[in-house]
């Protein structure tokens, strides 16, 4: 008995000593680096970030899922200890995809809600309205949800960073695929007549030498019959489409009505299979659905949304099982990059410190197929894409390697291996 008690006391005192040592260590750590209110929007317990999103209006279907998905990831991080003990508060406001509303909502976020940074504000025309303002106010403007190369302008907009692969790089890599795998076929273009479509065409034109027909549309006119008829008349056997989902669906339906069956090559933003299937069914009143998507060529800069075996997809789907589509994946992946960036900025970040961290820390290990391009001279996110093909069951399979490029440089094959997420799903 006595021996036992002695052993127990020894064991207990050892534990006690261990505890005391651990406590001392913990104490030492917490006194030397306490959380301070190091910048607007940062307190000892909170990081407040803001965004403008099309929660209502013409761009809402699909895109309105992005911010809630990003928020789901932030809540996951918060539930697992947050970032240096701080919880992330994500304050996203509706702008209805109206640049004037974006302008006033952004001022509300900066002046009244006093956010530390803007994150993933959505849309090219909408965000162009506030990019000067945010840079004048020196508010970090991270990971704009648009592939316009206008966000990559460090000299005039040092606080703004893009995230997704820009449309010109995408156009180049799609153009290269057509040259290599669909050579000898007549090619036609169908593109949105704004920065998005025109940037994509810029990339395509660097690769393709002859184009049978160039057709564009404006999102306010839903009749695309003249354009699709012109493509058909030109004899184009391949149609490259830089279109938003609604117009990809309209183009596919119009072509089907005209018995025109080219090979469709559709840019990433306009090719999300669940979104398109829903739109095709809706527009045709149930007459057709996802079968029109079979054989469509597209590209991806994130793991394929239908690839359940991919560890990133498994992680994000575990955090939010439904709804699950490309928009949800997009929001979560962008939120992951944000947590990487804010961690890189250190325990008590400042606005300038966050920008400096993004420019100097080589961010790696993100969810993208291609590496991040952030540096002091480059504010572009993912540098490349991988071509993919939609099968009969609606699932995509990748074709060939990942390619990277810049707006004017050569296309290179990317040899790096894709990263896997850390086991707790939070960047270290």
């Amino acid at each position, binding site marked *: 008995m006595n021996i036992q008690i002695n052993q127990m006391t020894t064991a207990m005192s050892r534990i006690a000593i261990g505890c005391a040592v651990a406590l001392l260590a913990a104490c030492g750590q917490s006194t030397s680096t306490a959380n301070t209110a190091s910048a607007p929007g940062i307190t000892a317990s909170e990081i407040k970030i803001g965004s403008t999103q099309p*929660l*209502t209006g013409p761009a809402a279907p699909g895109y309105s899922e992005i911010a809630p998905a990003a928020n789901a990831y932030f809540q996951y991080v918060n539930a697992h200890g947050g970032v240096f003990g701080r919880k992330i508060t994500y304050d996203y406001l509706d702008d209805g995809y*109206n640049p004037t509303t974006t*302008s006033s909502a952004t*001022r509300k976020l900066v*002046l009244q809600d006093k956010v530390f940074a803007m994150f993933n504000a959505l849309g090219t025309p909408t965000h162009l309205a*506030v990019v000067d303002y945010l840079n004048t106010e020196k508010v970090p403007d991270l990971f704009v949800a648009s592939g316009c190369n206008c966000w990559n302008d460090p000299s005039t907009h040092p606080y703004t960073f893009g995230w997704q692969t820009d449309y010109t790089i995408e156009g180049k890599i799609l153009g290269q695929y057509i040259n290599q795998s669909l050579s000898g076929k007549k090619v036609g273009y169908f593109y949105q*007549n*704004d920065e998005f479509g025109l940037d994509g065409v810029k990339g395509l034109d660097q690769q393709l030498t002859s184009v049978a027909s160039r057709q564009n549309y404006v999102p306010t006119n839903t009749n695309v019959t003249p354009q699709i008829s012109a493509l058909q008349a030109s004899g184009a056997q391949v149609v490259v489409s830089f279109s938003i989902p609604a117009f990809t669906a309209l183009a596919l339906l119009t072509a089907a009505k005209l018995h025109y069956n080219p090979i469709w090559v559709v840019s990433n933003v306009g090719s999300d299979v669940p979104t398109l299937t829903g739109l095709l069914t809706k527009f045709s009143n149930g007459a057709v659905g996802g079968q029109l998507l079979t054989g469509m060529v597209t590209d991806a800069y994130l793991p394929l949304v239908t690839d359940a075996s991919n560890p990133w997809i498994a992680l994000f789907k575990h955090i939010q099982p439904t709804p699950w589509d490309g928009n949800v994946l997009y929001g979560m992946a962008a939120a992951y990059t944000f947590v990487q960036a804010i961690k890189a900025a250190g325990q008590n970040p400042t606005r300038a410190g966050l920008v400096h961290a993004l420019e100097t820390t080589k961010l790696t290990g993100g969810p993208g197929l291609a590496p991040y391009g952030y540096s002091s001279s480059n504010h572009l996110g993912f540098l490349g894409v991988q071509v993919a093909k939609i099968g009969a069951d609606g699932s995509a399979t990748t074709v060939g390697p990942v390619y990277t490029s810049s707006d004017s440089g050569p296309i290179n094959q990317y040899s790096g291996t894709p990263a896997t997420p850390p086991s707790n799903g939070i960047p270290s």
Partner: protein
Amino acid sequence: MRVSVFKWRSLLTPTLSRHLGLALAAFIVLLVLSSQIGAYDDYNLAAIAIFVIATTGLNLLTGVNGQLSLGHGALMAVGAYSTSLLLRGHDLPLILVLPASLTAAALVGAVFGVAAARLRGPYLAGATLALAVGLPQIATRYSHVFGGEEGLTVAPQVAPAWLGADFPPERWIAWIAIAAALITMVLLGNLLQSSVGRRFKAVRDHEAAAALAGINVARTQVVAFVVSAACAGLAGSLFAYWSGLTAPSGFGVALSLQLVSAIVIGGLGSLSGAVWGSIVLVFVPALTGGMASSLNLPSAVGNNLPLLIYGAVLVVAMLLVPYGIDGGLRRLFALARARWAGAASNHKGVVDWDDPAGG
């Protein structure tokens, strides 16, 4: 031309000095107020002042002259695009840009006013609606000039150095907009008290009777349209400075309808009604937006709740105060007065709608 003759004559009347005194007092109060509030509140204050300019102009046309316009958002667009184009590559002072933009909108208003003077009721509403739908499309059609959907950016107005380095630009644009709004109100208030204003009302109340009394009905209507368009142009120009961007989506049909709903909610035909309407226009969406996000609702409901509440507020306001906020307040005052005066008064709280200044 006759307008200006009458304006100059009215300079000598006590009406102008009274209006000027009121405006000066209001300016000082608002300046003090704007210095006490945060930069975002200043930004909203500027928005109210800008909408006051547009809605007083529209109220003159619709409430006083009886011509409904569903196209005033497009006339604001003319002012805003004039400003953006003038400032493209030139560093012109605001004091030149505002009158130039105002003139551009007045010219478009004159052309459209000639057509509008021939139209009545639903046809006039239809024609002005066509203006609201059609005009912003020009910006997308000729995108090399007007910047397409992305629009044209406008550099913000920087406050003069003597106000200090920390002076927020939002407060400066608020001061400019308040000054412009008060000047507009003084000028229009005076116009309403003059014979021009009386002719506007005569044409609204009975065109045939007005014509028999020697009033040129068509000319009066065109004049009202031009004055109203000039106000919309000034508001549009300030709007461009305020938002930093001129894009077609900022001047859609929704804006035109909002302006109409503001004067109806505020009170048709009165200057103060336009002020009330503009306050509702700016503050109700801001409040409902905050309400929706604090309720923690499913996104499909929460996203659309602000619009729903805004609609409900409009419906309730129409039911409670059918003559607008201004009419409701006047009725309250009249009732209170009647109560104080006791049974001796036979005033039943009836408001004289034709006498907005109450004089």
